[in-house]
């Protein structure tokens, strides 16, 4: 029977078609291929919505659609589509944001008279296709392949303005750093194949299931001489390398701020809503595997918590609006990692969703501001834009409140659940989680601070420059997406009001939990809940814990916002960073993360390469040339015996003969 699922491939292919169209005939189309992209993403969006509804009807889908390499006496490598609540939700998010970004681009790129638009829209189309392909991937190899394509697209789009020095360099850095992570990912993929003989995510033969069985001794897999537990941890951490790279987690986060060199819609789509989400999504996708390894989870949680705090502190001092958002992105993904590591599968997914909306919103809002400011991004040149561009302001505000985690905006609910899950599991006897929790909690304060510092500096007070006082106006194609996302950012929290449920005892309003429980038995949240090696404990009762947790985080957020209000919500704000003293420089330089990585690349690798080159030229090739020159030299000596004097010939001839005679005489014993 032909169901909606048979059209699932189309969700991926439509944007791909738009890529081809834009690439081939984009320059002959109106709007340089934008319309094709919009049509395609709209189509994908509709299909995704239909798929979503079908999944809501309790059906999931997992089918192999293409055999990439058919193994003879070996495993097949296939492409398949896995649609379950998780991927259905992600499809919806990605298609929606992609669609909005396409529309927004009309205002940001076309109206600004950019050149090379076909290239731009082709990139967007290809990116959307790759991302969707990654989302629906039903095995690790396919996931990796689209993961890489996503990386390519980010390279192309970050480097869109290739005629300037900055963007190409940033693009290179982005690809290189993520490539470094992907190296471990690829090793992980290969290891998964070698271990389980399959890389499928779902089904009774999927590698998480096999791993579980192996741990219970019900199945035997090749663990290369390690204990299964240890080996699975190793494999998990290898794959995690790719996650850390793509989701810009410490220490591979350095590429993301630079990636702001790209056009702002690209930043919104790629570096906020979707591509960076790929890493987290991957962990969620194969959570059944990670849940088996306490060590892996602990490490994930630590990375997440630390990144959340670490990035937040850096966001405090930035001058450019996009930089602030960049570091906030890193920080927010830290929260998701924290949740995953802390056993909060649903919480992570929840925050993934809400963050997608409000971060996209914030970037698009920033884009709108940047248009208004004639592409000047320095917040200290702005101020007082509130009156000039109200739509942008209120949408941006909604996003900011969500980001800061202020009740009742979406960010509050998700972040709160993240922290709550971590807390109870930490209390359940896992000090590591408590440490991570502490860092996450502390980050809430900084988040509130830098968010509102940004808001106040940008929109409040008096215009600090000519452009700020007379900003460029924006059109519907900018305002529309902002409005949509603004509403979403404000409201999406309502899909999972766990605290309300816990406190007021209203059952069944944790829709997201129910949603994610609908998946197949090896992939649903309930199953993961059983797998995770944590037990829960509470301060007082459950409700009390909820209340305390929510209260504390909300309080910290408000405190941060309040401090920002005190410092920056004044007509003539001044820089207070000097009060930070030495820390200021440290923060300005992002803890010298870039420096040491650049040093690793240029200060270590290149000299080594040069030495290798010298060695190659001198020694390896020297031997080769040495052999020939020695031969020629000996040749030039050998010919010297041909003196040209016939008497010498006679002598040499006689000597030669005599030598032979003597040699043979002695050997043959003639003279006895």
């Amino acid at each position, binding site marked *: 029977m032909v169901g909606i699922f048979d059209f699932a491939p189309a969700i991926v292919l439509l944007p791909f078609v738009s890529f081809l169209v834009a690439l081939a005939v984009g320059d002959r189309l109106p709007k340089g291929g934008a319309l094709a992209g919009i049509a395609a993403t709209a189509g994908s969006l509709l299909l995704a919505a239909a798929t979503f509804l079908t999944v809501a009807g309790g059906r999931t889908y997992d089918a192999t659609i293409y055999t990439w390499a058919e193994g003879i006496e070996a495993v097949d490598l296939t492409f398949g589509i896995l649609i379950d609540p998780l991927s259905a939700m992600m499809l919806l998010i990605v298609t929606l944001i992609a669609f909005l970004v396409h529309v927004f681009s009309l205002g940001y790129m076309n109206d600004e008279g950019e050149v090379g638009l076909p290239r731009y829209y082709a990139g967007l189309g290809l990116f959307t296709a790759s991302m969707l392909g990654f989302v629906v991937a039903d095995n690790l190899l396919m996931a990796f392949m689209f993961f890489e394509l996503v990386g390519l697209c980010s390279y192309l789009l970050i480097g869109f303005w290739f005629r300037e020095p900055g963007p190409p360099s940033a693009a290179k850095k982005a690809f290189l750093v993520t490539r470094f992570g992907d190296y471990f990912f690829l090793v992980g993929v290969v290891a998964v194949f070698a271990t389980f003989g399959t890389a499928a995510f779902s089904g009774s033969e999927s590698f998480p299931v096999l791993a579980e069985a192996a741990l219970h001794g019900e199945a035997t897999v090749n663990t290369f001489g390690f204990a299964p537990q240890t080996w699975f941890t190793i494999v998990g951490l290898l794959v995690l390398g790719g996650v850390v790279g793509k989701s810009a987690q410490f220490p591979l986060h350095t590429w993301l701020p630079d990636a702001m060199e790209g056009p702002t819609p690209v930043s919104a789509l790629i570096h906020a809503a979707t591509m960076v989400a790929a890493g987290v999504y991957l962990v969620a996708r194969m959570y059944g595997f990670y849940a088996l390894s306490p060590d892996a989870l602990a490490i994930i949680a630590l990375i997440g918590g630390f990144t959340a705090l670490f990035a937040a502190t850096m966001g405090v001092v930035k001058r450019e609006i996009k930089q602030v958002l960049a570091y906030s992105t890193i920080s927010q993904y830290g929260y998701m990692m924290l949740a995953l590591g802390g056993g909060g599968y649903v919480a992570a997914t929840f925050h993934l969703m809400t963050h997608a909306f409000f971060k996209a919103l914030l970037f698009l809002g920033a884009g709108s501001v940047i248009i208004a400011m004639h592409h000047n991004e320095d917040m200290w040149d702005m101020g007082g834009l509130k009156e000039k561009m109200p739509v942008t302001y209120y949408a941006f505000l909604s996003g900011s409140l969500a980001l800061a985690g202020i009740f009742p905006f979406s960010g509050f609910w998700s972040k709160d659940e993240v922290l709550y899950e971590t807390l109870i599991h930490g209390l359940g006897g896992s000090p590591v989680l408590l440490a991570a929790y502490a860092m996450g909690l502390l980050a809430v304060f900084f988040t509130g601070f830098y968010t509102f510092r940004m808001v106040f500096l940008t929109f409040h007070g008096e215009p600090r420059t000519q452009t700020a006082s007379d900003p460029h106006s924006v059109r519907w194609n900018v305002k529309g997406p902002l409005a949509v996302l603004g509403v979403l950012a404000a409201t999406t929290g309502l899909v999972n009001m766990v605290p309300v449920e816990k406190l007021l005892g209203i059952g069944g309003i944790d829709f997201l939990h129910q949603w994610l429980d609908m998946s197949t038995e090896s992939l649903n949240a309930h199953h993961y809940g059983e797998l995770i090696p944590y037990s829960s404990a509470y301060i007082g009762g459950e409700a009390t814990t909820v209340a305390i947790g929510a209260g504390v985080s909300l309080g910290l957020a408000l405190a941060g916002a309040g401090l920002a209000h005190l410092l920056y919500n004044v007509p003539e704000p001044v820089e207070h960073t000097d009060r930070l003293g030495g820390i200021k420089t440290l923060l300005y330089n992002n803890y010298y993360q870039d420096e040491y990585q650049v040093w690793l690349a240029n200060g270590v690798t290149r000299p080594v390469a040069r030495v290798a080159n010298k060695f190659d030229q001198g020694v390896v090739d020297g031997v080769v040339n040495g052999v020939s020159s020695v031969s020629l030299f000996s040749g030039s000596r050998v010919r010297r015996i041909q003196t040209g004097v016939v008497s010498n010939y006679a002598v040499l*001839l006689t000597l030669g003969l005599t030598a032979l005679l003597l040699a043979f005489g002695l050997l043959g014993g003639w003279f006895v």
Partner: protein
Amino acid sequence: MFDLALQAEPAATWTALAPAILLGLTGLVLLGIDTIRTDEASNALLASVSAGGSLLAFGTAAWFLVAGTGQERTGGAITLYGDALVVDGMSLFFTLIFTIVTAMVVVASYDYLRDHEHRAVFYSLVLFAATGMTLLSMANSLATVFVSLELASLPSYALVAFLKNDKGSVEAGLKYFLIGAVSSAVFAFGISLVYAVTGSLVLGDVAAAVNAPEMAGVLGIGVLMMIGGFAFKTASVPFHFWAPEAYEGAPAPISAFLSSASKAAGFAVAFRVFVEAFPLGALPAGVDWVIAFQVLAVVTMTLGNFAAATQEKVKRMLAYSSIGHAGYALIGLAALTAGGPNGDVLGASMAHLLVYGFMNTGAFLFIALVEHWGVGRTFEDYNGLASTAPIAAVAMTVFMFSLAGLPPFGGFLSKYALFYSAIEAGFWWLAAVGAINSALSLFYYSRVVKAMWIESPSGDFEIQSRPVGLYAAVIFAGLGTLLLLPAFGPVIETAQTVAATLF
């Protein structure tokens, strides 16, 4: 041939000598012409007569070979004059080499001698030398060996010094002659010692009497001295000293003649004498001549190649390269073992000499062509020749790569057949030395190619003429070298069968 097999009375047996007789007669005819025509006889006539004579001899030899004269099928080797001469497959095979080389050389000389006197003398001397070589390949008694050796050598001395007014030619002749005289003296003394031990000169009888215990030392000295004689003829260390100068100084066609035919003749007689007279099985201790040849082979090929690598003059480079090739061919004797695959080894060496006859003659004749044009002798003088004389340059390229042992040319197969059988006989180290040398030889052979094709002409020289004879000979040699790749099958098979009959 069938009737040949039928009439086995002595009247028919001497006909087996037809090739040698034909060559000798041609030489006499040439002299006759010269005496009849008191004015300088016409060059074309002389050249065509001698070419015709040698080709006739070639045809006869080929016919005999195909017909099976002196081979198992027709009752084995034909021995004449009290076993002094023997006609068998091997002698016929070598006759092919001598005669075809002679033909090429005389055709080429047609142009080379255009403005010289005493052409008839030149041609007849070449023919007489060829006769000597043919007899040499048939000699079955140390006496005939020595006589035909001299018959082959004496004309050569004169030919090398043929350009009376050219210092180089005369000096070459002198050196060639003096070394030759010494060598033949050593050779003769060796023969006399062998006779002293065995009391006979006929190879078969020598073999029968060779294991005389008390005189082993004398026999050993004799054998070594005979090796010296052959080493001279084949231009092998330590009797090679004459070769570079002789080849460089002599008229180029004569260099071709000596380095191809004369060398082959040396091998022909060496093969027969050592295999027939001193069979490996029956030797007394301490007279193991195989070891001597192994030493000579290694030293010769190495010295030849290394000295060739650094020459400035193309002709002299070729001279050394021909010493190197003597080293390869010596493998044919050096890789013999009692009861080993000796037929294969010897046959491979013979096949290599045949191919070498084409490519090396061709190379020297190209030099003759260049000398005819008055282009200089160094590598630099050859720069850009390809642009002015493409056809000849292609031919020369073929010769060079073939000498270096690269496909798709005859030299490739013959050289590898040689190494191959050496390994087959278990002497992989001998093959290894040969392989390294031939890989190195690629360096200096390709210098010629580089000069002709890659470099641009340094000084612009005029090519006055396209000498028909020289061109014909060079192209013929080139085609031979090329065609011997596909046609190598019958060659190597014949060679190995006829060689196998010696054991």
